[in-house]
Structure formats: structure tokens, C-alpha cells
């Protein structure tokens, strides 16, 4: 084995054993147990899923503004859903369902946690790998199976499911309903596999964080990225089991004649359904008990990356590090007691609604602390406007915009009006969808040189940032207004309905569709930049090109097998020691001793 040279930044280290490098293509790249390879596998899966999901959103927008237009290629691909290329309303609902499911599970849940978390959590804590590398591989491949099942739903008889990404019964639970055949079964099975994969991954993340930290790396010295991955894993551990249970019951309702969720006396397509006594609301409770923490599973890692990058590129310590940690924990805990705010219109008791509403408002506090501290971190900093920094600032902007509308929706009285309108679509896309994706863009741009030893094109990155940033506001900004009109969501068609044509509503829908086309086109800039840079980007030979402080920047780019080559660096300080007074440089890495930071005089010897 070749000796791994640790950067001179590492003041001291301890030798531990080394693991042999895997041999052969399959062991190295396919069924790899190396957390870095698995991280990249997750990222690639999410990238593919993101483009599929984006394509579906395009179909949704096209159908909304041109309900009767024929798109020839669709007729060939989906002869049932789009005869002669004209999308049926059922097809619209199926595309909507698949868009939501793919984006939430296969993109927002996999990339931030499975992708970046897998790649950088072990390195940032000074470990050679995850605690259970083989379990890690199992998690990824189970996720892959889940993704395959989901994609298969497009091609089975009856087509993709159309019960929405929330899979509300009775529509999802009654096979007799139109377009609810095998596709819906595949959907449930896919979600079940995804739950299992996520549970195993969560277990791995938690044990790794608790058990494999380098000497000196106390919990309060962890990078905020690690904190968010850790808390996200706890959320996943406690939430996915509940969804798995609900999924099992739903599958039995569909196929084995049980009545957990299907009420009695139901008539579907002029056929009496032979079930009794089940409760669709029970599914909603189980689903949202998972579903709300899921929102934080998607966004917390983005918050971590944002904190990390704002400090790095403002050359300042994270403002209020401890407050940030407590806010992350508070968001995690509160995330489990607010699920009812998704169900205000389910006929819940006003007293329950009041409790859920108050608890929901409470989440505003830690969220505001985080936002305040991000601004505090930027305040007076020597900001370097690199593309990862732009994405991070974009994250803060989108988080605030999306979060503020959440305060409206958290009020039961207001939510009754807004719940089934575009206002909600605007809200959750800004905060959960786009903000989280900006966190991913930031992560890709920031860590790309470390992962691949090459640079992404900075100019292209900035163009992509501005196009996407303006594009998403152009898409989701007007939706708030449409929601107030109120335009109902999940409807396949608005033309021909008089009250929906008031004012500029029709034109706004056109505008949104055009903005969506523009934004989607801009994503190909990112794809081009990403793929091109992997193979032909400017080589990055430095270990620490951003002058950052955490451990991943103390090893070569790309990191060698085993990360630190059988050495474990000792940690001497917190994660964000930028601009220390009297220091030789404007940053001190976590593995720098005082002597290295201040010169020998200040070190006490």
C-alpha cells in the first residue's frame, strides 16, 4: 500500500490499522463498501431522479396551460395516459404523484444525507469509514431497488399511481379505482423498501457520529454539517418505521381484504367496495407523523451546509455556534409534534388544531435563531462571492421566503382557505424543494474539488445560480397569488372554468409554465458543468483550496482509500476558527495546534 501523506496541517495523529484497498471494478465501484463511493452512488441516483422528476413537472405545467394540445412523443410513450399525445386528467395526476414521490424520496432524502453525509461525515470526524460499511452498501442498494420499483410503475398495466405523493386512501387503497392498479402497489412496495434503506442508513450515521470521532473532537466541536446529518439520522430512525408500518397496512388493505384505512359503504365507479369501518384519517396521522419530520430530513442537511459555507466564505466564526446546535435539536424535536398541521381540513377537533398550531408556531423560534445567526455570520465578514457561497445565500433567501408563508399556513383558520390551493404548493416548493436543492448545489460546488480533484467552472456556476434563483422565484412567487384567488391545486385543468379566469390568473399560469421551462433549461447548464468538470475540469492539486478549517481539507483531493491512511488526526479546536486575533493566517484548521496557529511563542513552550 502506498503511504498516505497527511498534510502538514495535521499537528499530531495516532496510527491505527489500515484496511486493504478493494481490487477489481465491481468491488471498487459497484458493490463498494467505501463510504465515498457510496456517497457518489447516492448523488448520481439523486441526479438521475432529479432530472426525471423535473421532466414530470414540465409535463404537469404543459398540461395545465395547454390541456388539449397534442405532444406527439407522449402518445408513443404512453398510449393509454396520453392517447394521440393529449394528456388525460388521470395522466396529469399520475405525473404529479410521481413527481412528488421521486423528488421527495429519491432526491431530497437521498442526496443531502446519503450523498454528502456519506461522503463527508466520516472524513469530517476523522474516521476511515462509516461504523458499518457493509450495512452502508446494503442501504444504498436497497434504495436502488426502491427507485427501480418506483420507475417500473410507469410501465405496468394501468400506469403510474395517481393518489399523490401522500398516498391518501381510499383512492390509494382501492384497486377498483381507475388507474390504481399494479402501479399503486409498486408505489407502496417502493416506499417500504425506501423506509428499510433509510432506517439502516440512519442507524449507521448515528453510531458513526457517536462512536468514531477523532481524539479531541467533542460534540460541541463538530462541524454543523455533522450535527445536521446526525440529527437528520435520528429523525429518519424515528420516522421511517412509522411510514413502513403504514405502508404495510395499506398494502394489506389493497391486496388482502383488510379494512385499516378503507371506510365502509364506499362506492367506487358504481361498484360497492367490500370493506368496513376503516379510517382514511388514520393513514393521514401515520403518514404525517412521518411526513413532517421528513420535511426536516430534507432541509436540515442544507442548513448545515449553509452554516458551514457562510462561515468559510465570510471568513468568520459561525455566529452563535451553540445556539445553532440547540436550534437544530429543537427543530428536530418539534418536528415530531406538529404533524397535525397538515390535517387541519381533515375535520379534526378545533382544540387539537389549536395545540398543533401553537406547536407549529414554536418552530418559528429555532428557525428565526438560525436565520438570525446566518445573517450574523455574514455581518461584517470579508465575503468571498464564490458560486458555493451564492448558493448558500440563495438558501437563506429561499428559506426565509418559504418559511414566512408557513406562519400563515400554521393558523388553522387561514389554512382552511389555503389548504388545497397553490399557496401551499408555493410554500412547500420554496422551503422544502428549492431551498434544500440550493443546499445541494452549494454542497456540490463546494466539495467538488475535494471529491474529484478538479474544479467546476466558476463562471458557469454563477450563471446557473442566477438563472435558477430568478427562475424559481418566477415560478413560485406568482403561485402565492394564485392560491389567494384561490386556484385549487391537484386540478388538471383551469381553462373553461369561469371563476378561475378572473383577472390575470390565466396569464399567470402561462408565465409560470414559461418560467419553469426557463429554469429547467438552466439545469442543463449545471449538468453540463458537473459532467464536464469530472473529466475535463481544471485540476485542483491543493488539499485546501477554499482555506477551510475542517478535516476533509487536510487530506489530498480526491481523498485516498481509508481517508487518512491509517492515521487519525488529533483535534484541537472548534470547526470555525476563522480570523482568530493574532493568528498567522485568517483560519485555523481543527487539526492545528496552537503552536501552528500562533507560532511557537503563543503555544506555551
Amino acid at each position, binding site marked *: 500500500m502506498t503511504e498516505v501523506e497527511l498534510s502538514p496541517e495535521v499537528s*499530531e495523529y*495516532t*496510527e*491505527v*490499522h489500515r484496511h486493504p484497498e478493494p481490487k477489481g471494478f465491481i468491488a471498487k465501484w459497484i458493490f463498494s463498501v467505501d463510504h465515498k463511493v457510496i456517497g457518489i452512488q447516492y448523488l448520481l441516483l439523486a441526479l438521475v431522479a432529479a432530472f426525471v422528476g423535473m421532466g414530470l413537472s414540465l409535463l404537469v405545467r404543459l398540461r395545465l396551460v395547454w390541456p388539449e394540445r397534442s405532444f406527439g412523443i407522449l402518445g408513443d410513450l404512453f398510449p393509454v395516459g396520453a392517447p394521440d399525445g393529449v394528456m388525460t386528467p388521470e395522466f396529469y395526476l399520475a405525473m404529479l404523484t410521481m413527481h412528488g414521490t421521486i423528488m421527495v424520496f429519491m432526491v431530497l432524502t437521498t442526496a443531502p444525507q446519503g450523498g454528502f453525509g456519506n461522503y463527508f461525515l466520516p472524513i469530517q470526524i476523522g474516521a476511515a469509514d462509516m461504523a*458499518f460499511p457493509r450495512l452502508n452498501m446494503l442501504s444504498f442498494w436497497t434504495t436502488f431497488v426502491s427507485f427501480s420499483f418506483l420507475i417500473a410503475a410507469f410501465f405496468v398495466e394501468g400506469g403510474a399511481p395517481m393518489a399523490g405523493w401522500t398516498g391518501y386512501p381510499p383512492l390509494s387503497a382501492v384497486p377498483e379505482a381507475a388507474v390504481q392498479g399494479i402501479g399503486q402497489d409498486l408505489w407502496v412496495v417502493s416506499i417500504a423498501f425506501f423506509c428499510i434503506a433509510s432506517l439502516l442508513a*440512519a*442507524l449507521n450515521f*448515528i*453510531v458513526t457520529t*457517536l*462512536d*468514531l*470521532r*477523532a*481524539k*479531541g*473532537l*467533542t460534540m460541541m*466541536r463538530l462541524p454543523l454539517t455533522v450535527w445536521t446529518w446526525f440529527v437528520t439520522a435520528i429523525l429518519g*430512525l424515528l*420516522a*421511517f*418505521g*412509522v411510514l*413502513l*408500518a*403504514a405502508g*404495510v*397496512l395499506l398494502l*394489506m388493505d389493497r391486496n*388482502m*381484504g*383488510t*379494512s*385499516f384505512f378503507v371506510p*365502509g359503504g364506499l362506492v367506487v365507479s358504481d361498484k360497492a367496495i367490500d370493506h*368496513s*369501518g*376503516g*379510517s382514511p384519517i*388514520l393513514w393521514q*396521522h*401515520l403518514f404525517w*407523523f412521518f411526513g413532517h419530520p421528513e420535511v426536516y430530513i430534507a432541509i436540515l442537511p442544507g442548513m448545515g451546509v449553509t452554516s458551514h459555507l457562510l462561515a468559510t466564505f465570510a471568513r468568520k466564526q459561525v455566529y452563535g455556534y451553540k445556539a445553532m446546535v440547540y436550534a437544530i435539536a429543537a427543530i428536530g424535536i418539534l418536528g415530531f409534534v406538529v404533524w397535525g398541521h397538515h390535517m387541519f381540513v381533515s375535520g379534526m377537533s378545533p382544540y387539537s388544531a389549536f395545540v398543533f398550531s401553537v406547536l407549529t408556531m414554536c418552530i418559528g423560534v429555532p428557525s428565526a435563531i438560525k436565520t438570525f445567526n446566518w445573517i450574523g455570520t455574514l455581518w461584517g465578514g470579508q465575503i468571498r462571492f464564490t458560486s458555493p457561497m451564492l448558493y448558500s445565500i440563495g438558501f437563506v433567501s429561499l428559506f426565509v421566503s418559504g418559511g414566512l408563508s408557513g406562519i400563515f399556513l400554521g393558523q388553522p383558520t387561514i389554512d382552511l382557505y389555503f389548504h388545497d390551493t397553490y399557496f401551499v404548493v408555493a410554500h412547500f416548493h420554496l422551503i422544502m424543494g428549492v431551498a434544500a436543492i440550493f443546499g445541494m448545489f452549494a454542497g456540490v460546488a463546494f466539495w467538488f474539488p475535494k471529491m474529484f480533484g478538479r474544479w467546476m467552472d466558476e463562471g458557469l456556476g454563477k450563471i446557473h445560480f442566477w438563472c435558477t434563483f430568478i427562475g424559481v422565484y418566477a415560478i413560485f412567487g406568482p403561485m402565492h397569488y394564485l392560491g389567494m384567488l384561490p386556484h385549487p391545486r391537484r386540478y388538471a385543468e383551469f381553462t373553461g372554468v369561469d371563476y378561475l379566469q378572473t383577472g390575470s390568473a390565466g396569464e399567470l399560469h402561462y408565465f409560470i409554465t414559461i418560467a419553469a421551462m426557463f429554469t429547467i433549461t438552466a439545469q442543463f447548464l449545471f449538468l453540463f458543468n458537473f459532467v464536464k468538470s469530472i473529466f475535463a475540469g481544471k485540476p485542483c492539486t491543493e488539499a485546501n483550496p477554499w482555506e477551510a478549517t475542517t478535516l476533509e481539507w487536510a487530506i489530498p483531493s480526491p481523498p485516498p482509500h481509508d481517508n487518512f491512511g491509517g492515521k*487519525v488526526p*488529533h*483535534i*484541537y*479546536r*472548534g470547526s470555525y476558527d476563522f480570523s*482568530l*486575533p*493574532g*493568528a498567522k493566517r485568517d483560519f485555523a484548521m481543527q487539526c492545528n*495546534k*496552537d503552536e501552528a*496557529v*500562533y507560532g511557537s511563542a*503563543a503555544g506555551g513552550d
Partner: protein
Amino acid sequence: MTTTLTQTETRPAPTANGSGAFNGHPPGNGDGGRRGPFSNPALIQRYKLGVWVGVGGIVMFFAALTSAMVVRSGLSNDWQPFDVPWILFLSTAVLLVSSFTLEGARRRMIAADWSGVRLWVNGTAALGLVFLACQLLGWQALSARGLFLASNPANSFYYVLTAGHGLHLLGGLLSLGYVWLRVRAPQRWATREAVIEAAALYWHFMDVLWIYILGLLVFWR
């Protein structure tokens, strides 16, 4: 001046123990084990921590089923209580005994008597299989009364809960099978203590979980 400012931030770095396994993962240990004592407390701790975390996830799975059962039983008037088959009490006894036999295996492990470990693990696995057989007989007893999965929500939950527990127990059986396979060559198995300890912890949890489920089925009618 600079030193005083940073002292609180940076001390006492080298001695502060932020690590769990690092200390107990010293050079030459756990690397296939050609030298030194095998027993690696840090590795045991890590594997057991893994099981404990997994227990958290499993608890949430069954908590969700429990809450579904409680809600469903109170929702409509189609809930028909029934007596659980008596054989469940036999299977409970079998499972309880199996925990003691597995403790026997653990004791042999501490004494480094590997053929003894194998014997006790065999016994435990056999009891586990008997337990599963009893559970199947329980299903048969219930269906003989005409109570099938879809007959009534009370029956549905009975089948779901017992099947859910049975599948988790099957996982435990697989891990015992793995122990049984690997312990034939203990000197070539570096993680043996950790795996056995973890498998034992998981198996005991299966006991506790089963007693909870039985209580739920008997008392929440």
C-alpha cells in the same frame, strides 16, 4: 493577549475525549487478528450501540402499529374481541428460555470455549424455531375458529403484529446462524465477541418486544 483570548477555545484539546471507539481501536487489533487478544471492548460497544439504535427504529414501527390498533378499535363498532390461542403462552415460555440459553452461549464465549458457544447457540436457535412453529400453530388455531386476516380488524392486528415480530425474530435467527457458521473457526473471526454480544442483545429485545405484543393482544380487546 491573543493567548488569553483563545485559551478557553482551544484547551484541553489533546486530552479531551471526543471519541468512542478510537481509544479501543488500537493498532494491530481487529485487523484479522494475527496477534494480541481478540476481545475488543470498543468494537463490542460499537456493535451493541448499533443494536440499541436499531431497537429505537423497531420500537417506532411497533408503536405505529399500536397506535393504529388503538385508534382503529375505537373508531367503529365492527371490532370483535377474541381470546388469543393458548399456545401463545407456550411460545412465550419457549422464547424466555431461549434467552437464558443464549446467556449460556455468552458465558462460554467469555470463557473462550468456542465449541460450547456453538452448542448453546444451536440450542437457542432451535428454541427460536420452536417459537416460530408455535406462532404458526397459533395462526392455525385462529383460522380454525374461522378468524382470518380480513375477518375482523381485531384479527387483522393479531396477524400483523405476530407476523411483524416473527420476521424480526427471523432476523435474529439469521444472525445466530451466522454466529454458528463463523464460530467454527474462531481464530479467523476478529469481530466474534462483538457479533455475539450484539446478537444476544437483539435476541433479548425480541423477548421484551414479544411480551409487550402479547400484553397488547390480551389486554387491548
